[in-house]
């Protein structure tokens, strides 16, 4: 199987997700940010048709519109608040992060939907991810000015 994919908010664990998802496309239709894409054959035959988020291109803004429209329970309807979301965890690559290399940047810190909670600045003004709060939405990965992104999401199933 190909590498782990980032699923929409409320997604149940990957193996269960693949069993439950009926590939109806409702979550992708409802997403106002076009962040939810439809996986292709390149992602795997059993994965084709399921919703994925490619955070570097378009992250999840935690609008929470998709869990209630899922008819199959692949996205858990009980996940209503953005704080409940656990799609994955952001990881900072200190070799590439501008702050850790001595240039001041606060892109990820400023744009994090859980401002000053999921990403905090340490005493030397370097971003640090609070794994207990991070939802895995990928906004930080999307806005990171480094190329490739110095902060990226490790999807839930791969944590």
């Amino acid at each position, binding site marked *: 199987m190909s590498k782990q994919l980032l699923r929409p908010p409320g997604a149940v664990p990957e193996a269960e997700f693949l069993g439950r*998802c*009926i*590939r109806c496309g409702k979550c992708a*239709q409802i997403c106002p940010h076009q962040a939810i894409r*439809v996986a292709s054959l390149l992602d795997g035959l059993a994965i*084709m*048709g399921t919703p994925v988020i490619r955070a570097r291109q378009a992250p999840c803004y935690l609008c929470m519109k998709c869990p209630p429209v899922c*008819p199959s329970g692949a996205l858990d309807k009980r996940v209503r608040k953005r704080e409940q979301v656990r799609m994955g965890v952001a990881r900072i690559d200190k070799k590439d992060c501008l702050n850790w290399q001595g240039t001041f940047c606060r892109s990820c810190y400023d744009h994090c939907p859980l401002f000053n909670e999921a990403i905090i600045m340490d005493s030397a003004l370097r971003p640090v991810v609070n794994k207990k709060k991070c939802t895995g939405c990928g906004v930080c990965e999307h806005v990171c000015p480094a190329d490739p992104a110095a902060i990226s999401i490790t999807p839930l199933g791969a944590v």
Partner: protein
Amino acid sequence: MKIAPFRRGVQLLSLAAMVAVPLLNRRGFSAVNGSFYSLTVGPVTFTDPLIAIQPLLAALKFDLSLLGSALIPAGIALVLGRVFCSWFCPQNTLSELGDAIATRLDLKRLATPPPKPLVRYAVLAFMLAAMVLTGFPLATLLSAPGIISAQTARLLYESSVGLELALIGLILLAELFVVRRVWCNHLCPVGTLLGLLRWKRTMRVVMAEDAVHTCIHCRECAKACQLGLNPMAGGLIIPQCHNCGACIDACEKMTAARKPLSFRF
């Protein structure tokens, strides 16, 4: 009054909805959302019964609300027969169009096996068994209406389509050159399951008891049937017949006081 104009209207609305629903969702109107796999209209969700049982069979995942959302489509099938196929399914609309073109061009098809339910039951049973054994979402991959609607949405959003659509191309080619209406009439598992949802009062085309006096054996009804059925042979055409009403429209005695053919419950 002819049935065809109403049916054509519903078919066109169904095609238009496949385009309109994704576009409206994109503009923030989301009261209608989904595809022919599963469609939500306001507070009500309709899920194709075959798709609704897929998580249970393929992954042993039980979801009461998913199964519940198949109740209305199942109820419609129990009362009205396979009207989803003939009035709403985009694959049937495409296949009807293809068949009309093939007939106009006088394309010779290789075979026209008589419609017998055995093949379609075997296809459904094989698919369900394969789903249980492999855990693979075969219902999703073999639901032609679901594929067409979901891929239309994807085309509108992402300007690309998936390989799932290859099945639709294969169906159309097979129907044009190999077997007339092969998918809808012999193979489609979605239609087979809807056809199984029937009882003695399910709506069907019936030949009147006094048809011996009214029927003139012009065979127009049998000629009108794209699925190769013969309404004059009696009430044995469920589950093959999907209640499109073409035979009733074609009947020469349609305007007579006592019609030989009619829908009955």
